[in-house]
């Protein structure tokens, strides 16, 4: 990329360059393509134009168009021993805006999806409380509730890339994330109901599935912004997302958002259970390991173009887009580069901007058919700037699995095909 010129967004300059290169007439105005002949999509009567479509109850819940059948979560078979204790990935390159449709939110289960009759589900609060309590789902729906938009990212998202680029698809490198409007009861209200004793400084949420998922969470976070959610994007939680009740732990690693939540114990010390000792600790190069690395660092990725979403249209106006998020606040700014980091441009932020939520960014440019090295760099509201993968490796070594928020690079070739690469 040594010959890569400084990028300019000026359409006039681009056209002038193109004119020199190709000898085409540069009129100062874009010439629209001329059809070789009449388009049958216009000149021929289409069936949907003539015959009746399906009636109102053909799909009582609704399903996506059959032409979108490729837009699905996908599994990487070699990653895990079976598909029960496993993970699949959100197709980020097929999505727009900031909300992930419920049916596309990535799944991670440790003992499969628990199928729970809400009439039989209970939430118990016990331990260091004045009054240990049991709630039915009906009880919980009588508490005041709130609506909040948060991302949920697995700490292992992008974890396969610590030693170098590995998977060719943003779905697989960055798809362990989703962003959803949760409706639920602030955990604070439920803890107040039971009366936390003065020495109650930690909670242990526990799942009702066959893995009995547990994590230790400090009381400060529990009282701050955690909630027990019953709904996502307006509908009841999906079974694979913890129906009928899940914990929401904004900005913190997804493993802590206990699904099928059945119990919360209050204690005076952390439990050091399997997920916070054996897993979700960050092994550094010297053999020492960080524990309780809860917050998700600011991160961004370009979703289009990307290996699963190549540039098929050839040179000309091109829309680059992606998402950014931070476990510590909002994303006021994202920079993008087309030349692997020599020159950066400020992307255009679009859509709602919520705390600990996904943010959508765009960068429109005229592609001249030259190979590109695309990157995005998130700035969060604390002033933190997303580091390069090499900057992270300098601090953490190569033996980490979790919290890889390094800058991602896609190489675009002359044909518009994209590939997962690293640059230096």
């Amino acid at each position: 990329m040594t010959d890569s010129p400084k990028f300019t967004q000026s359409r006039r300059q681009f056209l002038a360059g193109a004119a020199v290169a190709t000898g085409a007439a540069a009129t100062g105005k874009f010439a629209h393509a001329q059809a070789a002949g009449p388009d049958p999509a216009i000149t021929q009567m289409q069936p949907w134009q003539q015959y009746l479509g399906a009636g109102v109850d053909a799909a009582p819940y609704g399903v996506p168009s059959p032409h979108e059948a490729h837009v699905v979560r996908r599994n990487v078979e070699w990653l895990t021993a079976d598909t029960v204790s496993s993970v699949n990935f959100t197709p980020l390159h097929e999505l727009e805006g900031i909300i992930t449709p419920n049916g596309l939110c990535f799944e991670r289960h440790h003992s499969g999806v628990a199928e729970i009759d809400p009439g039989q589900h209970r939430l118990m609060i016990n331990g260091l409380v004045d009054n240990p309590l049991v709630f039915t789902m009906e009880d919980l729906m009588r508490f005041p509730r709130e609506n909040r938009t948060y991302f949920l990212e697995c700490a292992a998202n992008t974890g396969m890339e610590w030693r170098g680029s590995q998977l060719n698809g943003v779905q697989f490198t960055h798809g362990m994330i989703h962003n959803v409007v949760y409706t639920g009861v602030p955990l604070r209200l439920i803890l107040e109901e039971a009366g936390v004793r003065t020495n109650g400084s930690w909670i242990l949420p526990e799942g009702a599935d066959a893995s009995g998922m547990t994590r230790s969470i400090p009381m400060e976070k529990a009282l701050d912004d955690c909630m027990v959610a019953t709904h996502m994007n307006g509908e009841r939680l999906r079974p694979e997302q913890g129906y009928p009740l899940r914990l929401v732990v904004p900005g913190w690693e997804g493993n802590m958002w206990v699904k099928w939540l059945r119990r919360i114990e209050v204690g005076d010390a952390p439990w050091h259970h399997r997920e916070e000792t054996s897993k979700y600790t960050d092994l550094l190069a010297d053999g020492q390991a960080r524990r309780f690395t809860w917050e998700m660092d600011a991160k961004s990725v370009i979703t289009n173009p990307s290996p699963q979403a190549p540039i098929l249209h050839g040179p000309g106006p091109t829309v680059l887009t992606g998402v950014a998020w931070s476990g510590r606040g909002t994303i006021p700014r994202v920079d993008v580069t087309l030349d692997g980091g020599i020159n950066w441009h400020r992307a255009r932020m679009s859509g709602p901007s919520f705390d600990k939520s996904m943010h959508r960014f765009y960068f429109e440019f005229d592609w001249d058919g030259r190979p590109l090295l695309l990157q995005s760099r998130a700035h969060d509201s604390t002033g933190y700037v997303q580091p390069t993968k090499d900057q992270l490796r300098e601090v953490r070594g190569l033996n980490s699995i979790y919290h890889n928020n390094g800058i991602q690079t896609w190489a675009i070739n002359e044909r518009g095909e994209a590939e997962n690469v690293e640059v230096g």
Partner: protein
Amino acid sequence: MMKTLTLSTALVVTASFAFAQENPAPSREGGFGLGRTALPEEIAAWDIDIRPDGQGLPVGSGDVYTGEELYIDYCSACHGDFGEAVGRWPVLAGGFGTLDDEDPHKTIGSYWPYLSTVWDYVHRAMPYGAAQSLEDDEVYAIVAYLMYLNNMVDDDFELSNENFLEMAMPNEDAFFMDDRAATELTVFAGEPCMENCAESIEITARATVLNVTPESEEEATATPEATPAAAAAEVVETAAAEPEAPAGPDPELVAAGEGLWRQCASCHQIGEGATNRTGPMLNNTYGAPVGSHEGFRYSPAFAEANAAGMVWDDETLTAYLLDPRGFIPGNRMAFRGLRSEEDAAAMIAYIRAEGGDAE
């Protein structure tokens, strides 16, 4: 009067919209009076968590020898005979001195900081697919065996609630609290370079070299080019074909059996590529002698039934599925049994439909 009321309502609505994202749900003095007091036996039933300081640990004990037997029965199908693991299931033993290597092996012995974590997890989530089916003494024994596999104790060791807290794990001191605030947040901050930040940039690594990305299924699943007329014809065809009754096992029974199979699936496999797991694979079982699959370690009770000439047929399978422990006492299946003869008939139909018939 009416007009004033409407106006003020509108103002309130506007205000609450403006602060929708920030306005927290209200607390209430003395609480909401919702829920009910948890009974002591309810808390006892669910409060199973164990802490490093021993909180939650039940009275009990188990030795390495007993643990080895249990481990081979319940754990070795996934974790290997010596904790070395099968396939991509977790390795449980060894790995000492590798944590600062290029290829660190994070096992119970080399990495886990506390023994209580092992007890809690084995009891809470293992065996895979039959969670919380182990007695407390069995958990002590399996944990003792895992300690033996990790060279922490001799083969005559017995673990109990009394000596539990004396057992220190080798890697306990290698963990420290998240220090990103000091080591990273301030380093990765400030206004970054925007122009001419490097002289040249080269590609240093490519994902295509590894070629591990799942192939795209787009062509197989999405057919944007398919004509709507063809799609419509397909719908009509499907509707017309429906009333014809297919031959073979009652599909309703098979479907009911498929739903029930979930309870079996974590220990048993059936169909193409099925292998022995915690339980034997069930291909070629119906009509075959009890306990006759090669390569599976059957319990003495099953070996006896095999020697006595017992064969799996409707009668024996129904009796076994309804009451596994009562019908063949001393066998190792953790399952409590199906609820009704209808369920047993459905399960048998499903097993036979999936390749369960002996050749």
